[in-house]
């Protein structure tokens, strides 16, 4: 099972309503994934030279203020902190590599959900409604967003095993389906120095894409390679800084539907998630073809 949903706004005047439009889409997929839910929202970009981190910690009493102070001291630049329920967002002038290295060396229990200019990830175990409420999704603004409701199959129900999975700067992945060669692929990727934190199959797909992107592949090339190297069934939605991309396995085991109007492009596992969107009655609605990379964005992904 699992449900995935994505919404990319072509019309900037809707950006204030991104969360309000998207929250019902996510909640509609509760039947498909009641175990956990998550989303990656893009917008409110930090300036050139800065990074934005989404963080979570297994200890509820963990002090984000102390962490921000520590980072400010270490980096020598003000680490700007905002907290959102169990998540924290830190904006700081540094590089992805430097801050990731610093945090992984010193805070091994910290979960780096995402790093980028615009991306923020929130995810938790529990019903999609709870997750949406907890993080105040309906009030969130942005340019585009992808989300996931999980019915766990390949690994335990944990926040770490929830989607989206970060795959690099401003990149993340959500997945509906299951992969059968993830153990072998994980071992291979570990030898290429890609690190994994869970037994989850989707994390392997995320790591696989990260590895290709680090090697200089475009997102489209990385996804096309996935068609050959990933065994299993899947519909992927990949969030990028500019928009999102969708790929279904060559046999198209898992459903997916897309809708496009002058205002937005939306995708979902089932149409009912899209039924409440404005103008959906007259949208172009179709099922994406298997094995083809679809992408939308302000510039080509």
């Amino acid at each position, binding site marked *: 099972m699992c449900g995935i949903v994505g919404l990319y706004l072509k019309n900037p005047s809707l950006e204030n309503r991104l969360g309000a439009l998207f929250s019902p889409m996510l909640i509609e997929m509760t039947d498909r994934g009641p175990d956990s839910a998550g989303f990656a929202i893009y917008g409110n970009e930090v300036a050139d030279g800065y990074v934005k981190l989404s963080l979570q910690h297994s200890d509820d009493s963990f002090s984000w203020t102390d962490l921000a102070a520590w980072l400010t001291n270490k980096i020598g630049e003000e680490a700007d902190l905002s907290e959102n329920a169990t998540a924290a967002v830190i904006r700081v002038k540094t590089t992805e590599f430097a801050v990731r290295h610093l945090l992984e060396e010193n805070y091994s229990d910290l979960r780096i959900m995402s790093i980028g200019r615009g991306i923020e990830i929130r995810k938790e175990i529990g019903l999609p409604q709870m997750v949406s409420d907890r993080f105040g999704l309906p009030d969130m603004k942005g340019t585009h967003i992808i989300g996931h409701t999980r019915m766990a199959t390949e690994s335990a129900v944990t926040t770490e095993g929830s989607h989206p999975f970060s795959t690099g700067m401003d990149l993340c992945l959500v997945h509906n389906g299951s992969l059968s060669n993830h153990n072998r692929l994980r071992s291979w990727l570990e030898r290429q120095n890609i690190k994994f934190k869970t037994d989850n199959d989707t994390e392997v797909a995320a790591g696989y894409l990260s590895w290709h992107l680090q090697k200089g592949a475009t997102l489209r090339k990385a996804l096309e390679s996935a068609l050959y190297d990933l065994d299993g069934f899947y519909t992927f939605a990949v969030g990028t800084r500019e928009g999102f991309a969708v790929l279904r396995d060559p046999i*198209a085991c898992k*459903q997916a*539907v897309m809708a496009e109007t002058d205002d937005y492009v939306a995708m979902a596992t*089932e*149409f*009912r*998630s*899209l*039924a*409440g969107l404005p103008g*959906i*009655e007259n949208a172009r*609605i*179709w*099922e994406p*073809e*298997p094995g083809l990379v679809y992408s939308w964005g302000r510039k080509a992904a």
Partner: protein
Amino acid sequence: MNGQGNIEMNTVDLQKQSVRDLNRALHQLPEDNIQVGWEVLNPGGKHNIACGLDRELNIRIDGHAGYYCAGMNKRADIIVAGNVGVGVAENMMSGSVFVQGNAGQSAGATARGGLLVIDGDAAARCGISMKGVDIVVKGSIGHMGAFMGQAGRMVVCGNAGEALGDSLYEARIYVKGSVASLGADCVKKEMRGQHVQELQELLYANGLNENVSEFTRYGSQRNLYHFQVDNALAY
């Protein structure tokens, strides 16, 4: 809604009533209650709308429907003024289902009779294991169309995806556009008089002003294992 001529119209709004309410009402109609019109509002992509009917009814679904819309239909004539998800008219026995938009995967799967018309495109596995239904797709179909089709006719005015007609039995397929590839044991076949006639009839009945000579017929070469008489005792 009140009377339109002699036909009583019933309206069910799926924002106010459940799909189960709708289907139960349709199932409980008396056998002699013929030619009653039903309108279904706000389908909202809900699944299983108008399933398992066995009455002479006209039903119009005013919007996009979810999975298995009009599944197992018998005798009812159903119009969907929108798109449908997976498995529209699956296992239809008789009657008709008209989809005015696109259809998801497995449209008309295993259907034994009746007519399924899709104005737009149908996705993968259209007519999978069809057993007597007539399927007319005005647009294109995805991969594995008519997989293991046993009987019935499929007409595609657009193109067909990969592996058309894989492991066919006796179903007949007519495609006007390109075919990405043929499935195992599926071959192009000659359009003989009877095929020209049946295709003409199917097109004409659905108001399609297509030129029959532009279509190609595909069918089973009957070379797979189970077609060989030497293997008959293996079953």
